[in-house]
Every structure is written in structure tokens, then in C-alpha cells.
């Protein structure tokens, strides 16, 4: 019997039991809807997270810390350490950072005594820093201090603006005061002049400079005790993102164990990606269970159908239908339900995921993450990402399920004894 005729017969049989067929198809399409919606939302969400990660971390920049995060950080890096890294292949730039945290004994104030919004003073090479973070280290106003301009200070946005009101302007005098309780004089005061103010960063991440104030490296070295190993952080730019992990390995190999830690954003990003994949798979797994339930529904409905049509099967066999023909006839019905349910599910999944995305987007509309409200975060919208691959996977899954669960009833029908089947009332 020809395939077209078989399909036609299957369709006729399904139409005969409209409600039952409809309900079975509905259950399949719910399963497919779930899978499509979860997959496309998951992909959309993952894309968003990846975007944020790239925004928050420059993927071609490695951060090299002295010591170990777990076994304890050490003093710092020497110029020799920095030179070694600078000469590694794949490294295009290394720039150091000296950090002086603002504490009760170290203060940054304006001429009239107003405290700035800065939390940390960073000693940097201004020119190298701009090359390192071209998108981030941008000026809102003023100029970048020139090499050797030791009295210049560069303020992060939040250092200069407290709650939106500007406390320091270009050219203003800034006092760095260091209290020395048991020494004479009891405090040190160094004058700086505001050379520039950085643009607002907003994003969270390791390289947010909003609450920093930057001074020159030379001036910073003057202020710290360990002048042999002054650099608390080395920032390394690789010539190619794909080299990031290799360079990190080389750095780790060079230094004694626990004396260096390299933060590699790419591997971090990859870990996040892996975690997201796992979460997505988990959710799709749950969605697949609903399709499995639908499969059992197919089996159930077809078992009933085989029993109801026992006599019909007997007739078909008596007039010469082969077992394989009967098998195909019933499989065709299961397949047809799988195909219709699958197509329906793809469509409803498409619309459903947009609905769900809108719902989720309103939930995360005004987040206050660690108290910092940032403009970009408010714009987070999850847009479902329909990959053709997932469409194909979901569709073939529905067909596979319908065939697997249709096979048992179809075999049962095919194996009926014709004499007994004909006698069946």
C-alpha cells in the first residue's frame, strides 16, 4: 500500500474520533511548547548574560594578583616581575596598579574640607591605562595628565559627584591627608589638582572606576612602605583573546606556588556559560517530561483504538493486509498526531516564549543590585532566541516520541490473530 494512501487512511481514522485525537495532539503540543519556550528563553537569557559579561569584563585583559585568593595575598610585584610578564609572547601590554584604600587615616578632601566620593586611590600610568581600557577610561571633562605630572589627580565619576552634586571641578585643589598618630608631624598632606573626571561607568564588574581617584605611579610609590614590590595588581592585555588562558598559564608557571593568581575573564565567562547551559538543559529536561507524558497518552489512546477496531483489523487481514501494513497504518496515525502536535507546539511555543519574556522582563525591571542602581541594568529585556537547531530538535523529538509510544499498540494490532479478531464483537 502506498504511503500517501496510508496517510490518507490514518487521517480519516483520526477524524473519526475528533475529540480524542484533539486532546492527544494538545498534550503533544504542550510538551513541544514547553521545550521550545524554555530553549528559546534560555538561549535569549544566555545571550543577554554573555553580553553583560563582555560589558563588565574586557575579555582580553587578565588581572594578575600577588599571592593566592585562598592562601593569602602577598606584598606585591616588583618591576622585574612586571618585565617578565611584559616579555611573554602574546602579551601586548602590562600596566601596574598601586592601590591605597581610603580609610580613617587616609583621606581625600577638597580645599574646603568636603570629603570626596572616592573609596580607593589608584596609582597608575595614565597613558597605559587608556590603552588598556579604551572604552572605559574615557574623560567626561578635563584632560589626561601627562607623563611625570605628579601633582595631577584624575577622579572617577562618583568621586567627583556625590548624589548627583559635583564636589570637585577641573583645576580644584584636592588634599590627600595621611594621619600619622605617633609621628611628627602628626599628618602628611599632599596637594593635587584635578586634571580630569572620568565618565560614568555604571556597570558592575571588576573594572568599574566610578569610585576611584587616580594619581601617578611615582607619587603613589612615595606613599607606600614596600617600595621594592609596590604593585598590588598587574593588568595584562593579550594580543588575542584566544591566547588569554595560555598567557595566564605561563604566568602561573613562572612564579612559585601560591605567589600569583590570575583572573581570566574568558574562563570565568566560559564557566558562567557552562552553568547556564546546565540550567537550560535541566529546564528542557523538565519540559521533556511533559512530552513523555504526552507519549504515554498516545500509547493509551492507541491501545483503546486497537481494541475498538479489533474487528476491522480482522477484516483487513482477511482481505489480505499484511501484518506490516497494519503496523504501518497504526504507526501512521501516531506519526500524524506527532507531526500535527509538533507543528502546533512550535507555533504556540513561539508566542508563549514572547509572552513569558515580557512577563519576566517586567519582574526584573527595577533591580537594586548591592544598592547600586545603574541605568543599563534597568534596560535588561530578555528576548527569546529561536534557533533553528532547537526547532528541529523539538520537532524530531515529538515525532520520535509518537513513534516510540505508537509502536507497541501498532505491533499489538499487527499481531492480532485474524480469526479471533473477526469473531470480536
Amino acid at each position, binding site marked *: *500500500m*502506498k504511503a500517501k*494512501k496510508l496517510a490518507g487512511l490514518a487521517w*480519516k*481514522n483520526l477524524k*473519526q474520533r475528533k475529540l480524542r485525537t484533539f486532546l492527544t495532539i494538545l498534550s503533544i503540543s504542550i510538551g513541544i511548547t514547553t521545550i521550545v519556550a524554555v530553549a528559546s528563553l534560555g538561549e535569549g537569557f544566555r545571550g543577554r548574560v554573555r553580553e553583560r559579561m563582555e560589558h563588565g569584563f574586557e575579555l582580553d585583559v587578565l588581572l594578575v594578583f600577588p599571592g593566592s585568593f585562598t592562601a593569602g595575598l602577598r606584598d606585591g610585584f616588583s618591576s622585574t616581575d612586571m618585565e617578565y610578564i611584559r616579555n611573554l609572547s602574546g602579551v601586548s601590554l602590562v600596566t601596574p596598579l598601586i592601590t591605597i584604600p581610603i580609610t580613617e587615616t587616609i583621606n581625600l578632601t577638597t580645599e574646603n574640607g568636603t570629603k570626596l566620593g572616592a573609596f580607593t586611590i589608584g596609582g597608575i600610568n595614565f597613558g597605559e591605562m587608556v590603552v588598556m581600557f579604551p572604552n572605559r577610561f574615557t574623560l567626561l571633562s578635563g584632560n589626561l595628565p601627562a607623563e611625570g605630572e605628579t601633582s595631577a589627580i584624575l577622579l572617577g565619576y562618583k568621586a567627583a559627584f556625590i548624589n548627583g552634586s559635583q564636589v570637585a571641578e577641573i583645576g580644584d585643589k584636592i588634599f590627600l591627608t595621611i594621619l600619622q598618630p605617633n609621628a611628627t608631624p602628626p599628618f602628611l598632606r599632599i596637594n593635587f589638582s584635578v586634571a580630569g573626571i572620568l565618565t560614568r561607568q555604571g556597570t558592575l564588574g571588576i573594572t568599574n572606576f566610578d569610585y576611584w581617584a587616580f594619581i601617578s605611579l611615582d607619587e603613589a610609590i612615595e606613599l607606600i612602605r614596600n617600595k621594592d614590590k609596590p604593585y598590588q595588581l598587574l593588568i595584562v592585555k593579550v594580543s588575542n583573546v584566544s591566547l588569554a588562558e595560555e598567557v595566564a598559564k605561563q604566568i602561573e608557571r613562572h612564579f612559585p606556588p601560591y605567589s600569583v593568581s590570575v583572573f581570566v575573564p574568558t574562563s570565568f565567562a566560559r564557566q558562567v556559560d557552562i552553568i547556564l547551559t546546565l540550567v537550560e538543559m535541566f529546564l528542557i529536561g523538565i519540559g521533556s517530561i511533559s512530552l513523555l507524558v504526552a507519549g504515554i497518552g498516545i500509547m493509551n489512546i492507541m491501545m483503546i483504538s486497537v481494541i475498538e477496531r479489533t*474487528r*476491522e483489523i*480482522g*477484516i*483487513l*487481514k*482477511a*482481505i*489480505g*493486509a*499484511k*501484518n*506490516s*501494513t497494519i503496523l504501518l497504518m497504526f504507526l501512521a496515525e501516531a506519526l500524524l498526531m506527532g507531526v500535527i502536535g509538533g507543528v502546533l507546539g512550535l507555533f504556540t511555543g513561539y508566542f508563549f516564549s514572547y509572552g513569558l519574556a515580557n512577563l519576566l522582563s517586567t519582574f526584573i525591571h527595577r533591580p537594586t543590585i548591592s544598592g547600586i542602581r545603574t541605568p543599563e541594568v534597568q534596560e535588561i529585556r530578555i528576548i527569546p532566541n529561536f534557533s533553528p537547531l532547537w526547532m528541529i530538535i523539538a520537532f524530531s523529538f515529538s515525532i520520535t516520541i509518537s513513534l516510540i509510544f505508537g509502536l507497541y499498540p501498532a505491533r499489538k494490532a499487527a499481531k492480532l490473530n*485474524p*480469526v479471533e479478531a*473477526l469473531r470480536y464483537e
Partner: protein
Amino acid sequence: MMKLVELKNVRKSYRMGKVIVPALRDVSLQVTRGEFLAILGPSGSGKSTLLNIIGCLDRPDEGEVIIDGINVLKLRDEKLAEIRLKQVGFIFQFFNLLPRLTALENVELPLLLAGVDEKRARERAKHLLELVGLESRVNHRPFELSGGEQQRVAIARALVNNPKIVLADEPTGNLDTRSGEEIIQLMKKLNSKLKQTFIVVTHDRKIASIANRIIYLRDGMIVGEKYRR
């Protein structure tokens, strides 16, 4: 005359729960081409079982069944289905038409199963329906037809693949006298004009009266045989 059907020492028993009920005990029978054979006997005598075995719907426990020179006992299920499709036509007491299909679709089904292309199948099915006098009812479904008409559709279906043997199990058993008479006349016509071989299981004396030969079955054994003409 050539032997079309040959049964040698056929035995068949059924299991009803724990009891084994013998249906046929040592039946041997020969049917020649073009014959109209009537099998008579009380109910439970094994008539239907005999018919099912000749029609390759069932297999005997013992003995040999040779259809047109082929020993069918050694054949696989798929091969038996092919014999049923091409060599045998069945007519049942309760017509056994497929309720969702029209008269025409019912008749063309065996052709489609045999892989005949749709257009030719349709033509042949129409021709057969004309032969049984139902050219005006081709697009009716079984429930729209009378019992006699349904049985004519069944006869057309039985003949559509040009079988060597037509097997009928109480073909008039579910019809009123007049319709039954018409069916008998139709079978007689097909037998005499087309030389179609008929093997008919019946209680109906009228059918027996048109048969070339009558065999009597009782308790699974042939207890008598009568030739006409």
C-alpha cells in the same frame, strides 16, 4: 479437472480456557476449479474452521493444505496474507465492510493493498460494483445500504482481485428471504458465467440446491457427500 484445493488429514482444535475443543478431526477434501461446493452441518460442526483453513486465515494443527499446488503450511504469515489477497476472496455472514469507507472504497481496498495504482483500482472497483448491480450506490457508506446491498459490496470486494477461490461463510444468514435469494442468484451467475470457484458454508437449503456438490460435516468430520448434475 484440476485440483484447486486439497486438504489431507487436517486436524484442528481450540483451547477454550482449560478445555481443548476439537474443531476438525481428520478432514480430507478436494475442490476442483469452477466448482460450487456447499458445506452443510449443524453449528459447532467445524464448518467455519474448515473455511478459515482453506482461506489461509488459520493454520491446522496437523495435515496438509495445498492451494493451487502450493503447500501453504510452510509459508510465513506475510506470504499467507498475500495468498489471501490474491487467491482468495472472503464473504461473511455480517458483511464485514469497513464502516468509514464508501462502497467504492471498500471494493478498491484489496487492489490498493496489492499495490495497483489508484486510477486503475477505481475503474476496476466500479466495474465490479456494476457487475453486482450497485452502480448507483458507489458513494454510499455501509450504514446507508440495505443488508442485501452490503452483501453485494462484499461480493464485489471478494472478487476484485480476481481470486481463484471465493469463500463464503453463511452469506445469506443475515438477510431476509428475498435479499438472500438475490445473493444466491448472483453467486450462481458468477459461478456459471465466470467459472468462479465457490466454497460456501451454509444452513440455507436454497444455496445447497444450486451447488455442484454438498459435503456434510458433523463433529469435525465429513459424514456425507452428495454430487449434483
